């Protein structure tokens, strides 16, 4: 099928960017969205042009590195799907597709469709962990955890840190990402000793990075490729209040 791509090109973070239009006459519907970019890049390089830079790694929907804003939606039109798992059979012959990088002041553009998401790492460094040195642990079965809690914690921990929540949020808020980690550790007995301190530090770090505020539009939950729930944001809101009251 024939696909027209309007792709954001930007040499680096300091120069302004613009859209370039490319036409691919023969796209297979079995291709993934990124494989279509591979094919386009192959062509560009053979023509002596600069290839399009984009982030990607595992290409099986789990590493969270791919990040394209496709036709107005983070990771494209399919819910519960990362860009690397989006296949061209979900588009029609003759479609024009607009592809942009994640846009947020906390995610500065590196080149073309690549952005810097290290803000997420810094939020985790501020408190997204349980302080347990190697070798300190007690036997794994010494603290039973109700299956329901363990399952909920898992659902929160399924976050791949791709940043689609920030990209899609009209305020570029990182609440879904941060709350997923706060909530995961708040649901587990091992996370209790640092529970109050953790939520405060992580929210503080989140605010410092310049993410927007949460308007509870719920768009993040819908566009999250792993379906992380707004429940976690509510839990973080609760925990943050409690942590400030008890302090």
């Amino acid at each position, binding site marked *: 099928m024939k696909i027209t791509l309007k792709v954001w090109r930007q040499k*680096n973070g300091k120069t302004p960017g613009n859209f370039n239009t490319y036409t691919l006459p023969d796209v*297979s*519907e*079995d*291709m*993934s969205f990124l*494989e*279509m970019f*591979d094919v386009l890049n*192959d062509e*560009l*390089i*053979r023509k*002596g042009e*600069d*290839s399009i*830079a984009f982030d990607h*790694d*595992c*290409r*099986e929907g*789990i*590493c969270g*590195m791919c990040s394209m804003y496709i036709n107005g939606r983070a990771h494209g039109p399919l819910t519960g799907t990362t860009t690397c*798992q989006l*296949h061209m*059979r979900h588009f029609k012959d003759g479609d024009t597709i607009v592809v942009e990088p994640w846009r947020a002041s906390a995610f500065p553009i590196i*080149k073309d469709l*690549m952005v*810097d*998401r*290290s803000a997420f*790492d810094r939020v*985790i460094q*501020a*408190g*997204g*962990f*349980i*302080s*347990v*040195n*190697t*070798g300190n*642990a*007690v*036997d*794994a*079965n010494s603290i*039973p*955890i*109700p*299956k329901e809690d*363990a399952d909920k914690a*898992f659902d929160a*921990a399924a976050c791949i*840190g791709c940043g689609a929540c920030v990209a899609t949020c009209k305020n570029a808020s990182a609440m879904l990402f941060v709350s997923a980690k706060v909530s*995961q550790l708040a649901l*587990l007995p*091992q996370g209790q000793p640092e529970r109050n301190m953790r939520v405060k530090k992580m929210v503080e770090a989140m605010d410092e990075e310049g993410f927007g505020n949460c308007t509870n539009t719920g768009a993040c939950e819908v566009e999250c490729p792993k379906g992380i729930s707004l429940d976690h944001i509510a839990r973080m809101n609760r925990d943050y209040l409690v942590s400030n009251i008890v302090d």
Partner: protein
Amino acid sequence: MILDAKIPEGPIADKWTRYKATIPLVNPANKRNIEIIVVGTGLAGASAAATLGEMGYKVKAFCFQDSPRRAHSIAAQGGINAAKNYSNDGDSVHRLFYDTIKGGDYRSREANVHRLAEVSTAIIDQCVAQGVPFAREYGGLLDNRSFGGVQVSRTFYAKGQTGQQLLLGAYSALSRQVGRKQVQMFSRHEMLDVVIIDGKARGIIARDLVTGKLERHFGHAVVLATGGYGNVFFLSTNAMGSNVTAIWKAHKKGAFFGNPCFTQIHPTCIPVSGDHQSKLTLMSESLRNDGRIWVPKKKDDSRKAVDIPEDERDYYLERRYPAFGNLVPRDIASRAAKERCDAGYGVGSSKMAVYLDFSDSIRRLGKDVIEARYGNLFEIYEKITGEDPYTTPMRIYPAVHYTMGGLWVDYNLMTTVPGLYATGECNFSDHGANRLGASALMQGLADGYFVLPITIGEFLSKDIRTKAIPTDHPEFEKAEKEAQDRIARLMSIKGNKPVDHFHKELGKVMWEYCGMARNAEGLQKAKKMVQDIRASFWKEVRIPGAADETNPELEKALRVADFLELGELMIDDAYDRNESCGGHFREEYQTEDGEALRDDNNYAYVSAWQYKGDNQPEVLHKEPLVFENVKLVQRSYK
């Protein structure tokens, strides 16, 4: 040179305990002055960097991804083994040790494997303490499941995302140390060379992938945890960025390469759909518990699967291996699929696939049960292929998944270069010629949390008086210049073909002649072909853009240049090993009914290859494998 594996004395069950009790250590005050470089932030790297940081060392950690959380350990699905015996089914450290040695087809080192089995239990404790949400029973205790090739249930798991959860656990421990300033994190950095001063590894040259700038970093010791090199085949289940560059550069600087030809092929992957294919996706092995594998009995049968009547289907695994049927080990299932396809019975548009059919199980157990067991896998399959596995059999084909080979290391995980360590998949040590399912995660975390942080003391304890070496030392300058020149040379070629063109050609040759089945004639042919591809790569490759900017094509070119050298060594190694064992199947060495034929008299050794210079043949050193605690027997799954 005689390879000294430095295996401690004493009975196997006591070696590690005794060794730990006597190993020289570095006292806390001195740790503060010692810097350690860790390259790679997967399970092995992140856990090592975190633990070394906790111990008080100054650590610099590097990864090429935009965040340490994205290392490819994250994609592991199935689980992690540990000899906890929570299932009360007779498991023990010894049994895990034995299973791993046997599963590896008796080509791994007893002492290392036993230590791995010993520390496996502490890994689970550590991960649970970090908040890793393993699957649990209703009683609140941890759940276990069984996995291929063993008779006990010792696999801990977190849905089909165990690797992700373990990595996020290690990443959180690492992040904590970054927050404490014990670890300095360098994301989007790729190591391009190791710097050796007075015979010891003292640092690395790394390229900042955003600015393109080359950087020099000093360390009293360098730990490589850079994963496997399956991408030499172009198509594999590895991540796009997974590469051999770090360990290859170490190899060229004197680290021997162990068993390079030992590659694991995973039988259940989604087949190639066309030339555009960029990687392959694995479907968990667990599918073979309820799926039946078949091909049509008629050659080139173009009917749809559902239209082929039962008596015209060939359930070839059940036919050939009545005892294990569809559950034979990975290498056997893979070869059998290749054999059928090569003989012309393959299915799908490419004819390079076999069916994995759930219709019997759905009839027997109901769709709900199958959905509960495999729902997420069926979804992945449908997402990629657009076909519904509930109504149409899945099409599967084997794909490269893991490389057992890697840098040769001694009991301390040190390579033949003093101060240079290799952990996790990038060393050769624990899996012999074939890795058991759910053991890669175990090895990565064992090395990083519990082994390396202790064994590295043996080297560093002698180094406490060594001051940090300034990075304007001539060796740093030389190494940086070499990297700079290589980049300049690549950029100046300005040919007409993109990097992937050569990578794909290399992959085809490796897959065809050094993949699931190898023979002497094919390997000889392949060696020449790889040399030719390498020559044309250096003449015709085109890299757009500049070296001093973000340039993914340059990154790829630097990696592929190394794969092109590695490929030849893999071929040499496969050619040298005149036997079939585990993932290495030489067609000349098989039993009458087509099974792998090992030669324990002549090949019970680790091949350790020494680099001798560009265009010089590498020299083979042999570390004999001595088995004192297990008896070598032929694997049989009939």
